[in-house]
C-alpha cells in the first residue's frame, strides 16, 4: 500500500514538473532599441552546406557592423529548417511566438518560400526572402503577402536576358535538362520564352528528378541536331552532369542556370566545366573593388570563396542596416519598414540594387563563363565565373512589361508549351 502511495506521488510530481516546464517558456520582452531577427536556413540534411553559406554571409556583415545597426542592437536567432517546408513553417512560428522577432529571413528552396510567405501575412511579421526564388511570391501572389520583401531574385529573372544572349550567339536549337521541380520549371521557362521570342527553338525538354546522380538514361537521348545544351542543376547534381557529358564525348556548348556553376559547387569541379556559360546576379569574379574586398574578407574568415548564397544574405544585412539608418535605429513597425526598404537604392557587392513596385530586386544580370585563371590577387590558378557580359537594371518582367507578363501563367513543366518538341 505504501508503495502505491509513493507511486501516485511520483506521478503527481512528474505532472507538476511538466506544468512547470510549460510555464517556464515565458517570452523575453523586446527592448526599444533592440532589433530581433530570425534566420531560417537548412543546417542539417543535404543542404546543410548551403545553409552555412547563407548564415555566414549575414553574420559577416553583422560582425562588421559590430552587431549594431544604427544604434539598434541586433539579436540574430538562427533556426534549422532542415530544407523542408513544413519544418520551416514550424520554426518560423517559433521565432515569432517564442523569440518575438520583428522579421525573419531566409528559406532556401522555392517551395519553402511559398510556405513561409503566408506565415508572414498571418502573424503580421516581415519576411525577407534572401534566397528562395519562387516567381509568384512577387508576381501573381504578391498582393497576398504585403509584408514580404525579396532581396534575392526570382528564378526566371536571369533566364530572360540569358535567352537573348543565346540568340546573339547564333544558337538556333537548344535542348534543356533541368531538375524536376518548381525552381527548374521557372528557370527553364524564362529561358525558353526569351529564347523563342528572339527566334530560337527549344527542341527538347528533359526533367531528371531532383537529386539524380546517374544521367545515363538522359544523355544519349539528347537530340543530335541541337546547337547547345541548357542545364539547371542543384546541389550534388551539378557535379555529376558535366562529368558524364564529357565522358559521353559531348562537343556541344553547355550553358545553364546560375546554380549549375555557382561558387558553392565550383571549387569541387574540374576542367570538364571550362567554357560553360551561366547567368546570375552575382559572381565571385565580378571585377570591382567592392567585390574583391568582400571575397577576401569572406575567404579569410570562412576559408572558401563566397557563393551567391553568401552574397545575397550579406547584402540583405546591409539593406536592413540602411533602412534602420533612415529610421534612426528605431523599429518603425512592419508596414513602415517594408516601405522604407522599398525606397532604398543600395550600392551592394553585386552592384546597384533597388526594389521594384512588387518588392523584387532590380539589378545587373551577369553572363558568366567558367575559366581557369588567377583572380583578386590569389596566387593559384582556380576556376572562376568570369563575367563576359552584363545586363544592367534587369527586373523580374524583363522587357515584357508588368501587365503583359502577369497575364501569362507562372512558368511550369508545361508552360511555355514546347512547340518545337517532337
Amino acid at each position, binding site marked *: 500500500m505504501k508503495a502505491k502511495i509513493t507511486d501516485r506521488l511520483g506521478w503527481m510530481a512528474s505532472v507538476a514538473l511538466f506544468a512547470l516546464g510549460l510555464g517556464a517558456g515565458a517570452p523575453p520582452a523586446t527592448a526599444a532599441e533592440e532589433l530581433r531577427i530570425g534566420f531560417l536556413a537548412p543546417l542539417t540534411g543535404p543542404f546543410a552546406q548551403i545553409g552555412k553559406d547563407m548564415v555566414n554571409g549575414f553574420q559577416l556583415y553583422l560582425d562588421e557592423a559590430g552587431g549594431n545597426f544604427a544604434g539598434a542592437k541586433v539579436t540574430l536567432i538562427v533556426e534549422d529548417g532542415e530544407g*523542408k517546408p513544413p519544418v520551416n513553417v*514550424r520554426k518560423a512560428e*517559433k521565432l515569432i511566438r517564442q523569440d518575438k522577432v520583428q522579421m525573419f529571413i531566409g528559406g532556401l528552396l522555392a517551395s519553402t518560400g*511559398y510556405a513561409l510567405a503566408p506565415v508572414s501575412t498571418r502573424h503580421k511579421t516581415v519576411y525577407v526572402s534572401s534566397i528562395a526564388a519562387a516567381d509568384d511570391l512577387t508576381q501573381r501572389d504578391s498582393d497576398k503577402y504585403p509584408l514580404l520583401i525579396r532581396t534575392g531574385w526570382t528564378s526566371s529573372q536571369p533566364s530572360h536576358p540569358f535567352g537573348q544572349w543565346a540568340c546573339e550567339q547564333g544558337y538556333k536549337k537548344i535542348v534543356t535538362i533541368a531538375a524536376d*521541380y518548381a525552381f527548374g520549371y521557372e528557370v527553364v521557362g524564362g529561358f525558353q520564352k526569351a529564347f523563342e521570342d528572339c527566334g530560337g527553338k527549344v527542341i527538347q525538354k528533359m526533367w531528371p528528378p531532383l537529386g539524380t546522380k546517374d544521367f545515363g538514361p538522359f544523355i544519349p537521348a539528347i537530340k543530335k541536331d541541337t546547337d547547345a545544351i541548357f542545364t539547371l542543376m542543384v546541389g550534388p547534381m551539378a557535379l555529376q552532369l558535366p562529368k558524364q557529358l564529357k565522358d559521353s564525348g559531348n562537343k556541344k556548348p553547355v550553358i545553364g542556370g546560375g546554380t549549375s556553376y555557382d561558387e558553392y559547387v565550383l571549387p569541387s569541379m574540374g576542367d570538364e566545366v571550362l567554357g560553360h556559360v551561366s547567368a546570375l546576379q552575382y559572381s565571385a569574379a565580378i571585377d570591382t573593388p567592392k567585390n574583391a574586398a568582400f571575397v577576401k574578407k569572406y575567404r579569410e574568415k570562412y576559408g572558401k570563396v563566397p557563393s551567391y548564397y553568401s552574397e545575397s544574405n550579406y547584402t540583405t544585412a546591409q539593406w536592413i542596416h540602411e533602412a534602420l539608418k533612415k529610421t534612426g535605429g528605431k523599429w518603425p513597425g512592419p508596414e513602415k519598414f517594408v516601405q522604407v526598404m522599398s525606397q532604398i537604392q543600395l550600392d551592394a557587392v553585386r552592384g546597384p540594387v533597388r526594389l521594384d513596385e512588387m518588392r523584387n530586386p532590380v539589378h545587373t544580370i551577369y553572363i558568366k563563363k567558367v575559366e581557369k585563371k588567377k583572380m583578386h590577387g590569389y596566387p593559384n590558378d582556380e576556376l572562376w565565373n568570369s563575367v563576359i557580359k552584363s545586363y544592367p537594371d534587369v527586373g523580374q518582367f524583363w522587357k515584357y512589361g508588368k501587365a503583359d507578363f502577369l497575364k501569362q501563367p507562372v512558368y511550369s513543366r508545361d508552360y511555355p508549351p514546347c512547340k518545337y518538341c517532337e
Partner: protein
Amino acid sequence: MKNRRNILIVIAALLALAIVTPYSSSYVITLITHALVFAILAMSLDLLLGYTGLPSLGQAAFLGMGAYLTAILAADYGFGLGWSFWVVIVLGMLLGAATAAFFGLFAIRATGVYFLMITLALGMCVWGLAYRWNSVTGGDNGINLPPRPEFGISLANDLTFFYVVFGFFVATLATLYVIVRSPFGRSLEGIRERELRMRILGYNTWLHKYIAYIIAGAFGGLAGVLWAQMNGLVSPEDVILTTSVDALLMVVLGGPGTLVGGAIGALVVTFLRDYLSTLVHWWQYVLGGVYVLTILYLPGGLIGIPARVRNWRARGKETSSSISLKEGRP
C-alpha cells in the same frame, strides 16, 4: 482494480493538460497541439502495431489523404471554413478508411517484415501522387490553406484550436479504448499472440485484421485533417516515409499495445525535435540516444517505467530481507 487506477491516472493527466496549457506561452501551446495531432496518428498505428501485431510503415499515407483532402477542399473550393469543418472531418475519416480498405486488400495478406515492406511501398505511392500530380496537389510546393475555420468559435485562435484538437484526441483515445477492450479487440490480441490458433478456433483472422486496418486508416485521416489546419500548409514532405517512421517510433518509444504510450511518445518526440532543436544543434543525437536506450533497457516503452521501478523496489526489498534472513542463521 489496477485497471481503474490506470484510467484515473490518465484522466488526471488529461485534466492537468487541459488546465495547464492556457497558462503556457503561445509557442508551447502550438507545440502541445502538434503533439496531440501526432498522438492521434500514433494511437491509430498502435491499434495495428501494439494490438494486432502488424508493424505498418505506411501510416503517413492516411495522414496525407486527410491533409490533402482538407487543403484541396479549402483552397480550391472554399469548403470547410465554417460549420462544414465537421463535414470535412467526417470526409477525411471516410477517405482515410477508404484508402485503408483499398490498401488492405494488398497489405493484409502479408505478415511481419513483408507487411512492413508492402505498407512502405503503398505509403510511397501516396507520396508519389502528392509530389507528381501537380495540377491537384501543387507538387513540390504543396498547398497553402486559407485561415482556419470559424463557426461561432474561431479556430484561428491557438487556444481554441488546442481545445478542439484536445477534444478529438480524447474522443479518439476513448473510442480506441472501447474497441480494444471489446471482444473484437480481444480477438485482435489473440491474432497478435498466435494467429494460427485463432484461425483453428474458427475466427476469420483476415477480416479482423482488415477491419483493424480500416479503423487505423480512419483515425489516420482524422489526424491528417487536423494536421493540415494546424500547419496551414500541406506538403509532400508531410507524407514522406519519415512521418511514418516517426509514428512508428513514437509508439515504440511510448510503449506499444497501451494506446496512451503512443501519446506519450508523441509528446516526447515532438518536444525533443521541435524544442530541443531550437536550443542545441546536436538534438538528433539526443533523440537517437533516447531511442536506443529505450529499446535496450525498456522494451515495453516509457510507459513501462513505473512498473519497472515498482519491480526493482520490490526486488530490492526481497533481497535485502533474504540477506538478513541468511545472516540471521548461524
